[in-house]
């Protein structure tokens, strides 16, 4: 039973997936899509399994202080930090607002309404009615955003009408705060239900404390996750790939030897393709790109096709063996 049931399940799933290409019935497709969803869920669950496996393999080696154990500590710590930065900590216990509007003072028709921005972040930028950004904290010139933030809060007069105020940070990974102020008492209904009415003479204080996002969820990628991706993962990943140039040059020097006619042929073809691929080949002679194209289009394509067809036939044969229960190695059999 321990082998019969998995074999039976494998047979049914295999035959069913095979039939999907030939049976256009919608009911059949619905079941097939469920099966495919299972496959996607299993693939995602493999990440959890992989994480557990990494700990299982490396932790005992660290405990026993085996060779290169400090690297394993770095690896586990990095995985843990990256994993933790992917959790939406800012949303634990409910997401909080990034700002609010307070209206103070008494109305006075002859005095214009004023706006003051009190941002908790020194580098916050304020955009009023979609205009150019202004510094929430400035040194006398709020429009000079290329300068460092100053100590004066942004404060200006507001004309009668509806105004949109947006406070944001110049870096990704933070919430922005947007609000609408309607200045004047005799105006029509504001376009936004959440708008705040401000009478002439009153002071509208926009208090902003922009929430820092955590997590790796689009579109609000967390600050820490983004920073780690941009400043650790990206350069390390790119560096490993860039080192290939040196490894290839070293391997070319040490290993590419014309020991016999076949390897000499391979070397000759490699050199011709390398010359023909780059503009210097064309500059040396227009024949090189033509030779390169011929090698790629004729020799490479022919060989590749043969390999691909052979591999496809092999995959079909293996698939049939699994479906029919002849191949049992995936069940732990010899």
């Amino acid at each position, binding site marked *: 039973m321990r082998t019969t049931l998995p074999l039976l399940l494998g047979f049914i799933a295999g035959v069913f997936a095979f039939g999907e290409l030939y049976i256009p019935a919608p009911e059949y497709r619905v079941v097939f899509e469920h099966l495919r969803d299972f496959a996607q869920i299993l693939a995602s669950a493999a990440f959890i399994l992989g994480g557990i496996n990494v700990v299982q393999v490396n932790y005992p080696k660290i405990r026993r202080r085996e060779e290169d154990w400090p690297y394993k500590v770095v690896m586990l710590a990095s995985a843990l930090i990256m994993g933790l930065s992917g959790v939406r900590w800012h949303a634990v216990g409910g997401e909080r607002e990034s700002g609010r509007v307070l209206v103070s003072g008494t109305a006075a028709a002859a005095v214009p309404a004023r706006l003051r921005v009190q941002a908790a972040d020194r580098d916050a930028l304020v955009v009023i009615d979609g205009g150019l950004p202004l510094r929430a904290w400035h040194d006398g010139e709020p429009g000079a955003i290329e300068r460092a933030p100053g100590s004066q809060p942004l404060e200006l007069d507001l004309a009668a009408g509806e105004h949109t105020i947006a406070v944001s940070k110049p870096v990704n990974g933070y919430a922005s705060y947007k609000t609408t102020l309607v200045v004047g008492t005799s105006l029509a209904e504001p376009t936004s239900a959440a708008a705040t009415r401000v009478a002439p003479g009153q002071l509208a204080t926009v208090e902003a404390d922009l929430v820092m996002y955590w997590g790796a969820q689009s579109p609000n990628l967390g600050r820490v996750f983004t920073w780690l991706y941009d400043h650790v993962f990206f350069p390390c*990943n*790119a560096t490993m790939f860039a080192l290939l140039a*040196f490894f290839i040059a070293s391997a070319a020097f040490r290993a590419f030897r014309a020991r016999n006619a076949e390897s000499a042929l391979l070397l000759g073809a490699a050199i011709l393709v390398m*010359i023909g*691929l780059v503009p210097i080949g064309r*500059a040396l002679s227009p024949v090189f790109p033509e030779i390169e194209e011929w090698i790629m289009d004729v020799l490479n394509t022919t060989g*590749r096709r043969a390999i*691909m067809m052979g591999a496809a036939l092999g995959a079909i044969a293996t698939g049939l063996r699994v479906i029919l229960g002849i191949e049992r190695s995936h069940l732990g059999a010899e």
Partner: protein
Amino acid sequence: MAERTDWSQRLQNFDRRWIFVAMGLAIAVPLFYPLNLPVEPSAMVKSAYYTVESLKPGDRVLLSLDLDPASTPELEPYYRAVMLQLKRRRVRIVIATTWYAAPPLVERWIAETVEGRIIKPGDPSYQGVPDDPYERNEDFVWLGFREGREATINGMATDLRGTFDNQAANGIPLVQLDIMDGIRTLADFDLVVMVSAGFPGIKEYIQQAQGRGNVPMVGACTAVSTPEYTPYYSAGQLLGLVGGMSKAAEYEKLVGKIGTATAGTDVLNFGHMVVIGAIVFGNFIYFTGRRRRRRS
């Protein structure tokens, strides 16, 4: 005679770190002193370019960005060139990825090149149609990442909306987006553009989707993968293929905006010469050593 023996003996102990120095110089020097050799687009690259160029305004394209940061030097130049071309043609774009390491990179590219401008206004090096920013969820939509590799691509080929839980990456239901009207499977797109660094990528899209719905596809890949995908181009399953940085430079020339691939091609010129030199020099040492061993 003794002198010659010493010389060939010394060659046997050649320090390969000199190869690293030569490669380092081959990479660094052309960046400061470019050769600027002329680039001539090849047939595969021209085919990829004209396939995109044949799209009409309002056509819909799926752009699959299946890559990671390591492959950006080779693939980002093509991405930028083809994105400029798509925006110039006012084509609507649906973006997705099947690589878990891609989303933060793709989000940045979207902000810089789709919602922003690839060509800054007044750029003297560019003479073409202006590059206007696209509106999210109107001109383009970002579906995000789904794990499942071939299963995901197979899902896109049969039920694209279901594969992405019927919502865009920012949670907006796809049913609310005009850009997704009538899009059920990959076959409903006017073109699929793949920027692929490996598995899953071009090969899996062809295997799972191209044959099923005769989906028109063009792709860009790393240079090392080019020989693997060339047969698909020869068979007509791929309508164009841009393989590696040198081919991306050819694409940049066709699009009319010189970018990093053109500068990088100078590095390739010298880099390839260093590798060829290393092969020739390595064989020279090998044969002198063999001759010496036979004599002794």
